[in-house]
């Protein structure tokens, strides 16, 4: 599974720390997510999508 978290986060002007705090996760988790080294749970995916104001489908892609 790949994602566009970094791309959309940079568009919104958020830092990893800000995104992590808003989504209720740690910054290290956001780092791993952006590097596609970790697949989030549905809840975390939903929370991140909500913070970035996009849908989960726009954010994550199953290959």
């Amino acid at each position, binding site marked *: 599974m790949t994602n566009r978290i970094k791309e959309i986060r940079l568009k919104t002007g958020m830092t990893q720390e800000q995104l*992590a*705090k808003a989504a*209720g*996760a*740690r910054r*290290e*988790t956001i780092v*791993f997510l952006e590097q596609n080294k*970790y697949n*989030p*749970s549905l*809840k*975390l995916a939903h929370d991140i999508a909500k913070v970035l104001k996009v849908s989960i489908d726009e954010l994550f892609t199953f290959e």
Partner: protein
Amino acid sequence: MTLKQYTSARIAIVITLAMFVSVSVTARNYILPLVAAAAALLLLFLRSKVADVIADERDYAIAGKAARWAMQIYAWAAVAGFFLLYALKGNDPVWAAVAYTLSYSACFILLAYSVIFRIFFGPANVKKSWLVQAFGIAIIIALAIAGYVAIEQGIDSGIQNTNNEIAK
């Protein structure tokens, strides 16, 4: 409280705890472990006051994986240690006791894992935090009983010193 403040407090409490435990072992004072238990409770209380995210789902997933690996490695190491020490018990009878301790501890950890797994396998709406609280209370009660027994039997060094001073 921020995560940084909590981390500093945790380090300070752990250092203090280590000092108390080492002193209690060398001085054979059985009251000090109760202080250690109180310090652990304080740490838990402080943890609940941290506003930042201390651990998220990834930390819990890794912790679960690490715990399973640690349990498996310990179980196998304990079994190997049991056979080795039991085979060499002729050199020192104490090694047989150590071997039995290792084997029983491996059995206990596997049994505890099975029981806890079964509990968490239950309905998701059942609160599992009572398990952690019950275990913590059981530890404190065990330490309190051990300290009371030590005092009653006069094993506690503090009581012995007091008795010696009174006898003088």
